[in-house]
């Protein structure tokens, strides 16, 4: 790759988010995932002659929430338009979408970059539209099978300004959106299942040029990792093309995750004249001020706000706050643990450490955790009140995970309470010292490192239950003599 530092990339992302309503955008059919083909496609979804669309009220609430979270304007009235194209998974031969006055317009999102700095990415618009059905290509000998269960599911398409400058920034932006939609409970944002889809518009230009280069649109990227790789590939491809004297063709490309390449999609040139016009079967949607302000009032705390609160109130580090606040379920879990344990720092460490490790090991979602937030909170309290040491606590946690028993029961049943009685510890220290006279002589003659040996022996004597702080203190005293 030659002279990369002469070039800069200009990236814009179009993210399609499937809204988690019970019924479809314009019909009363169910949106449940995984039903047998065409069992959730009613006459409206099948575009039977004479059917008409009726708007689902829930999507308006969801769209307004999103607009507020994206610091954008809510347009009222907002209207629908027909986007005309022929494809078997689009039964009407047009998609009902939004053209002129989308429900959400002109916002921004502040994203955190790897170096800790914050960059503001503009959001052009977010609009409502209906999803298409699915084509299945195997098993049908030269035919494709069309399943319209998904047709009519509500989507909101979020379009960013072309202000993203690198694959890493793109992923940060994408993760931010992902976090927000889950926080707002408007979508589960599952890229693998298709409830969040990302198309990347990429162009390059020589640094210092004002004009934008020709851009391509890359589709079929269904994970954060692939988004990064696909954009990275496309930037390099474009640079190489231009440096070889070729022009970039404005086209849609598909990402191939196996080969890590993008290739052009096969479609006719003028096939993309969508001939948008206002949807005559739907009237303009008026969103009353009261409606919008009641949603504003009931907005949940958003990831950025929560992060700031965690650093200020719980005195966590920026890194810890960031990690905990990114996922709403995790953040809630953390706060529940702290409510019980009253030790934010220790709770944060345990959650980011042992707890997440167990969840990841078993590929579990936090909702399926084998230890509740209250149980973990209690365990941490026991460390804080010196009932057990941190080390023993790890054992207890594992047993809690496997048995679902409470910390106190396990500690009691297994006799794991820390020994904190000074005279008991003194007795053990004296015992260890008396049994290890050689090491004592060596230590007293200057081998300071043997202090650790004595600590270890006392811990062993106590079966790990002696309070390490107190062992250290007493040993220091006794060994000075």
């Amino acid at each position, binding site marked *: 790759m030659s002279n990369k530092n002469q070039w800069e990339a200009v990236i814009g992302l179009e993210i399609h988010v499937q809204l988690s309503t019970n019924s479809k955008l314009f019909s*009363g059919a169910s949106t449940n995932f995984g039903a047998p083909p065409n069992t959730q496609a009613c006459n409206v979804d099948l575009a039977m002659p004479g059917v008409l669309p009726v708007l689902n009220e829930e999507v308006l609430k969801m769209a307004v929430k999103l607009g507020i979270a994206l610091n954008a304007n809510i347009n009222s009235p907002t209207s629908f338009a027909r986007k005309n194209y022929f494809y078997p998974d689009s039964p009407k031969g047009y998609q009902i979408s939004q053209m002129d006055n989308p429900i959400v317009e002109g916002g921004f999102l502040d994203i955190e970059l790897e170096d800790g700095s914050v960059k503001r990415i503009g959001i052009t618009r977010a609009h409502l539209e209906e999803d298409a059905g699915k084509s299945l290509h195997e098993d049908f000998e030269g035919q494709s099978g*069309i399943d319209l269960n998904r047709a009519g599911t509500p989507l909101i398409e979020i379009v960013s300004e072309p202000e993203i400058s690198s694959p890493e920034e793109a992923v940060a932006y994408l993760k931010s959106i992902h976090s927000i939609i889950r926080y707002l409970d408007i979508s589960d944002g599952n890229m693998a299942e298709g409830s969040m889809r990302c198309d990347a518009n990429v162009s390059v230009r020589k640094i210092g040029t004002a004009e934008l280069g020709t851009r391509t649109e890359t589709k079929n990227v269904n994970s954060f990792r692939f988004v990064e790789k696909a954009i990275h590939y496309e930037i390099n491809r474009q640079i190489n093309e231009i440096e070889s004297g070729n022009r970039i063709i404005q086209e849609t490309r598909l990402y191939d995750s196996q080969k890590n390449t993008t290739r052009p999609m096969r479609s006719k040139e003028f096939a993309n004249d969508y001939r948008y016009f206002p949807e005559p079967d739907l009237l303009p949607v008026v969103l009353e001020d009261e409606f919008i302000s009641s949603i504003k009032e009931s907005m949940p705390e958003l990831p950025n706000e929560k992060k700031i609160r965690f650093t200020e109130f719980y005195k966590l580090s920026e890194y810890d706050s960031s990690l905990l606040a990114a996922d709403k379920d995790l953040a809630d879990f953390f706060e529940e643990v702290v409510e019980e344990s009253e030790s934010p720092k220790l709770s944060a460490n345990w959650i980011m450490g042992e707890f997440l490790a167990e969840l990841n090991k078993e590929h579990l979602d936090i909702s399926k955790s084998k230890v509740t937030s209250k149980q973990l909170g209690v365990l941490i309290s026991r460390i804080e009140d010196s009932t057990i040491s941190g080390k023993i606590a790890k054992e207890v946690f594992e047993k809690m995970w496997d048995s679902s028993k409470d910390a106190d029961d396990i500690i009691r049943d297994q006799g794991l309470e820390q020994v904190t009685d000074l005279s008991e510890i003194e007795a053990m220290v004296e015992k260890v010292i008396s049994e290890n006279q050689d090491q004592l002589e060596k230590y007293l003659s200057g081998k300071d490192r043997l202090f650790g040996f004595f600590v270890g022996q006392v811990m062993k004597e106590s079966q790990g239950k002696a309070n390490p702080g107190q062992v250290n203190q007493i040993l220091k005293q006794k060994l000075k003599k």
Partner: protein
Amino acid sequence: MSLSDKELKEIAYLARINVDEVSFPALKGELDQILGLFEKLNLANTDGIEAMSHPLNLSQPTRKDEVSEVNQREKLQENAPLVQSGLFLVPKVIEGEN
């Protein structure tokens, strides 16, 4: 106002309607006639006039987010030209939208 051959071919493709060579000239003539009607529109002064998409000056009603439709696949597929395993069959789709 007159359609060029290229334009007619393009709109026939956009509308997915096959126009065979033989019918082409006659169709083009008929369409040109209709386009002639449109000349009058250019003469109208519409400065400051808002487009009228709906005769009604009302706003869109909404419905509750409830599942109100039951599975009627059998009935709804009775008229289907080609169905297998509950899927509508079409000649193999290569790539396209979505």
